[in-house]
């Protein structure tokens, strides 16, 4: 796991190139505290900061093949590097290191872009072909690792985190109201979007080729949810699910350093922990967050699972004060407005993991998307069949949706029935499953002066996706989750970005392609979907404590606006003061003022979820404005303690050598 950055800029002063490259890497040095390196050619630079996990001694980057035609900067892990290496060796490819980076490079040379379909991993790659002059960028199929780019005509920049661009001469960040509207409305940027004007992210499962100043993006892997249904018995399906998960965890335990597990106490992380303890020779260490506010705390089930599986467990207790104190740092690493504060505790947890000497963590992300864990899926099934159900069926199923929310309780059934009745017919083409949720987003989109249709880009995305229209309502719901909330928040803001803030990489066994495929083949084959993750529970029922199986899913949450109201951090002034709000160009001051006023004077229990989310959006956007648009260091939170250990530099610039300046 590492971070990469680079640029193609024929016009940049050659003498300044090493300094610019170094400064860009320094901005993301937290991602790779072990070593750094760069490669320069005429008009081109690319580099990496490395967190060494596989082949600690000889996996330095950027790495070239023996002819020095191909150069690679690689961020991530290839879990099937052992198998691919063997295959490449049989084809006559020779290796100089034991690293997975070299397997990626040799695969590219052997198979070209087609190699990407063979990769099982989490990665962002930059490969430079010094002969053709092409630069290729690629990203894994689920968007686990980030890759941003800015195509500015004369200059093309790329990096694992946008903050690297701050070091490029003349680069200016600007919030993009249209992108923000989409972020507020659907909770996350779309697969190619960012909150900033002229910065895009490479969509998951695609690669970009830059040649002669022109870039072209192609998709190498489409998310496929309508797979052939599983044909065996339920017992066979259970065994199949167990086996693919076991293989996935086994593959993700491949590491030259110790691998820990994030244990939330829920079903998914308990399964990962169980398999990790089965497959590890040494004691497994588990880590979790406890909340001082017991409304959000899951520590009792974490302790039960840890004791049952015999892990060495440790946890950190997170208070409102901790969230307020670390909010700036966490937002700086997230780089995207957030609708919750739950990513801040993950920032603190990764710091703890790093202090414990662990660089690699397994987590349960991806299970809810694959095995229909979210209440969203049940709600979709319910609304889609609303007109065919009896009152009794409607009542029972509505009551099971959100046991944790009072207003979904029996006392309010009639109200909910009226509401669901209204949302039982699709209004936004292709987005039926998310229409209720998106009402909250529509509220948050009112934070913006420009009242453009906030769902325009999302509607366009599903309209233009081939095969989407033929999916079932539940599969569409899954597709949207795989393309928005999972990569745009759970894996990034709450996952990868918080982990890498302290040099900890996460690995997600539920996001192995074989697991996703297996889940798609068994979902709704043996149950009606109203018992969450029924088949997954059946697969591990006998090996986990009862609480892991019987406890209803508890969404991982943290206190929201109440934190800031209670703690009154200095930066709250960014939304309390009219003069400060004026500094965020795109915000509707009138609405923002009303929202903040209501939040500040209303008891927390009377603040609705959408108001709470809109407030966190407003505050995080105002913070990002200070950090990125205004470039104010004192709003960027705690600087990384990692140093930039520049070990590898390869300067192949002919223009300089002809001037006798090659170093």
């Amino acid at each position, binding site marked *: 796991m590492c971070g990469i950055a680079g640029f193609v800029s024929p016009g940049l002063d050659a003498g300044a190139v090493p300094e610019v490259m170094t400064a860009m890497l320094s901005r993301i040095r937290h991602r790779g505290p072990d070593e750094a390196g760069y490669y320069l050619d005429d008009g081109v630079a690319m580099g990496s900061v490395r967190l060494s996990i596989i082949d600690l001694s000889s996996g330095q980057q950027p790495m070239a093949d023996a002819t020095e035609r191909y150069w690679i900067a690689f961020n991530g892990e290839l879990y099937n590097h052992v198998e691919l290496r063997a295959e490449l060796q049989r084809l006559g490819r020779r290796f100089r290191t034991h690293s997975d980076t070299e397997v990626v490079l040799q695969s590219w040379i052997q198979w070209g872009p087609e190699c990407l379909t063979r990769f099982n991993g989490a990665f962002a790659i930059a490969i430079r072909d010094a002969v053709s002059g092409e630069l290729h960028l690629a990203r894994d199929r689920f968007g686990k690792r980030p890759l941003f780019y800015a195509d500015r005509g004369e200059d093309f920049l790329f990096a694992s985190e946008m903050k690297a661009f701050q070091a490029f001469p003349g680069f200016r960040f600007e919030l993009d109201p249209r992108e923000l509207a989409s972020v507020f409305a659907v909770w996350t940027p779309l697969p190619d979007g960012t909150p900033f004007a002229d910065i895009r992210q490479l969509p998951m499962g695609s690669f970009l080729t830059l040649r002669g100043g022109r870039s072209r993006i192609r998709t190498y892997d489409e998310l496929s949810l309508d797979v052939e249904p599983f044909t065996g018995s339920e017992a066979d399906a259970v065994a199949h699910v167990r086996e693919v998960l076991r293989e996935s965890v086994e593959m993700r335990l491949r590491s030259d350093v110790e691998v820990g597990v994030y244990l939330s106490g829920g079903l998914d992380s308990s399964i990962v922990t169980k398999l990790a303890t089965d497959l590890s020779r040494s004691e497994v260490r588990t880590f979790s967050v406890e909340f001082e506010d017991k409304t959000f705390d899951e520590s009792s089930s974490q302790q039960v699972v840890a004791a049952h599986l015999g892990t060495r467990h440790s946890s950190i207790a997170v208070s409102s004060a901790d969230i307020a104190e670390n909010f700036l740092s966490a937002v700086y690493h997230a780089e995207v407005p957030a609708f919750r504060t739950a990513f801040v505790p993950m920032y603190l947890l990764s710091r703890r993991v790093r202090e414990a000497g662990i660089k690699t963590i397994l987590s349960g992300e991806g299970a809810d998307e694959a095995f229909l864990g979210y209440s969203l899926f049940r709600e979709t099934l319910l609304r889609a069949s609303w007109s065919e159900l009896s009152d009794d069926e409607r009542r029972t199923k509505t009551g099971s949706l959100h046991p944790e929310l009072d207003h979904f309780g029996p006392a309010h059934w009639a109200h*909910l029935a009226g*509401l669901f009745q209204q949302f039982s017919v699709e209004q936004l083409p292709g987005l039926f499953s998310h229409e209720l949720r998106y009402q909250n987003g529509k509220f948050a*989109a009112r934070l913006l002066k420009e009242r453009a249709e906030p769902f325009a880009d999302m509607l366009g995305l599903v309209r233009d996706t081939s095969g989407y229209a033929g999916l079932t309502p539940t599969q569409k719901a899954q597709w949207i989750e795989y393309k928005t909330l999972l990569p745009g928040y759970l894996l990034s803001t709450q996952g990868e970005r918080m982990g890498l803030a302290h040099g900890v990489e996460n690995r997600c066994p539920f996001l192995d392609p074989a697991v996703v495929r297996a889940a798609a083949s068994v979902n709704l084959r043996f149950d009606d979907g109203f018992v969450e993750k029924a088949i997954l529970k059946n697969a591990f029922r006998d090996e986990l404590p009862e609480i892991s199986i019987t406890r209803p899913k508890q969404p991982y949450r943290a206190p929201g606006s109440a934190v800031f109201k209670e703690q009154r951090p200095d930066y709250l002034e960014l939304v309390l003061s009219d003069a400060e709000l004026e500094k965020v160009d795109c915000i509707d001051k009138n609405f923002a003022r009303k929202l903040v006023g209501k939040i500040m004077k209303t008891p927390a229990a009377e603040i609705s979820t959408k108001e709470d989310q809109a407030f966190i959006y407003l505050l995080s956007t105002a913070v990002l404005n200070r950090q990125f648009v205004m470039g104010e260091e004192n709003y960027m939170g705690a600087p990384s303690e990692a140093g930039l250990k520049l070990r590898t530099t390869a300067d192949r610039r002919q223009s300089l050598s002809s001037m006798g300046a090659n170093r």
Partner: protein
Amino acid sequence: MGRTETIRQFIEEQFLVEFGGELTDETDLFKEGVIDSFGYIQLLAFLRKEFSLEISDEDVLLDVFVSLAAIDAFVEKKSGGSDALRGGSACAE
């Protein structure tokens, strides 16, 4: 304050909107993202209390609470066709 004004003011304060601009009395408040499930229950509680209404399950299921005009008409009907807050008298003289 009259019935319609009372309801309008509650919605404006509770849901941080202003009628008169893009939001009219006929706007579907659900589809515009003004009212969510939580807000819907707050609205019904308000109507019950403010106008001493009995709201049955059937009423709620009749699809009446989507716009200010519809809510207003419902309250008017349930209050017996008169403006209860103004004393119930149609006589203004």
